[in-house]
């Protein structure tokens, strides 16, 4: 089956692109992935997506976008993209079971949570190490937890944890914060939340659980062990680009963009967090999706 465009990814970027390409009568396939919907599926209320004055639940917003894309004729399958041949036309994209052909491609695979990458972390994910406070806060009722990070999501997670935990310590490697002043103010005003600045976790220790961490002060170089029951990680994201062979990325792994959302391969476009390390908003991702879709439409018209 030959598609005019295959969109890889189904967050706000991929689904917005699909709404645009289908409305432009392009035969569209979305490889939505086994975790369809992207990062917004993991959030609760989104308060800054225009058009929803009372806010909207992330998963509800994504279900709506999906419905809208399907209504206009997008074919959406919940399987993971595994590999692609982008060397010759038509491009061949493989999932675990099948192969699909496309005249053009939009990469919209987004980004996933970044872990600390320290000793003792990986084997304790789900045993006291977490990247989702809303999911796991209840397991830390009256316990002492750390949240690592200095951005808005770290503050938000700290506030969620503070509702149930005995204490929340925000560990941040720098002395200043990326978080917005409103979020920082909320965290600072919460009596259960304290801050450990210029510090980073070197190792997570315990039997099978988390019982303590080794913390290093980045100014003095001094290391100490701190007893703790849980470690929540909110240090940003890594772009999902390792599956794309032959597509150029920058040093941090984000897809390198030429003009008008093109990659180094003519006919392969990019949109959303997989190339955007600066804004990373639901609304900007959606905006990139529409732009990339319009570029695809133009590119196909120029090359038919």
């Amino acid at each position: 089956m030959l598609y005019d465009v295959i969109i890889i990814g189904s967050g706000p970027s991929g689904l917005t692109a699909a709404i645009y390409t289908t409305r432009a009568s392009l035969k569209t396939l979305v490889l939505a992935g086994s975790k369809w919907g992207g990062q917004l599926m993991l959030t609760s209320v989104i308060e800054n997506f225009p058009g929803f004055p009372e806010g909207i639940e992330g998963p509800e917003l994504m279900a709506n976008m999906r419905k809208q894309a399907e209504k206009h004729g997008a074919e959406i399958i919940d399987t993971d993209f595994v590999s692609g041949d982008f060397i010759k036309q038509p491009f061949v994209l493989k999932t675990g079971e099948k192969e699909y052909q496309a005249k053009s491609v939009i990469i919209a695979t987004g980004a996933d949570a970044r872990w600390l990458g320290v000793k003792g972390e990986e084997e304790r994910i789900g045993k006291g190490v977490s990247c989702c406070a809303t999911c796991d806060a209840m397991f830390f009722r009256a316990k002492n937890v750390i949240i690592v990070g200095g951005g808005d999501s770290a503050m938000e997670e700290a506030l969620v944890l503070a509702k149930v935990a005995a204490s929340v310590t925000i560990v941040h490697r720098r002395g200043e914060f990326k978080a917005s002043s409103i979020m920082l103010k909320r965290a600072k005003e919460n009596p259960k939340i304290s801050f450990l600045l210029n510090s980073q976790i070197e190792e997570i220790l315990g039997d099978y659980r988390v019982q303590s961490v080794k913390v290093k002060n980045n100014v003095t170089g001094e290391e100490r062990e701190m007893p703790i029951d849980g470690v929540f990680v909110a240090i940003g994201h890594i772009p999902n680009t390792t599956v794309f062979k032959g597509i150029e990325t920058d040093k941090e792994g984000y897809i390198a963009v030429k003009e008008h959302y093109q990659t180094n391969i003519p006919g392969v476009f990019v949109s959303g967090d997989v190339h955007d390390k600066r804004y990373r908003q639901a609304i900007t991702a959606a905006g990139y999706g529409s732009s990339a879709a319009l570029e695809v439409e133009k590119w196909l018209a120029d090359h038919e």
Partner: protein
Amino acid sequence: MADVAFTDANFDQEVLKAAMPVMVDFWAPWCQPCKMVGPTIEALAVDYAGKVKVGKMNVDENAQIPGQFGIMGIPTVILFQNGQPVKSFVGVQAKETYKVAIEEVLK
């Protein structure tokens, strides 16, 4: 077969003493990633009807069993065979990942 609702009360009978392998999805209604795993679990229950018992346990309503198995993060999916946990998965996984583990115990 539809997916089964496991509870603290029926866990011993339905899971630990079950004749066939059992896959348990520990979840809660307020956990967004759990909502992504849910449909996969429901599909597996259908795919493996008669061979593997597949179901969910709401950790909000059942605290004892999750505590016993040291669960401190959800979604966690544990595959049991002969009353023993043989494989556990934390976080959202592809359907294929669960299938590989199931096929392994069915060998």
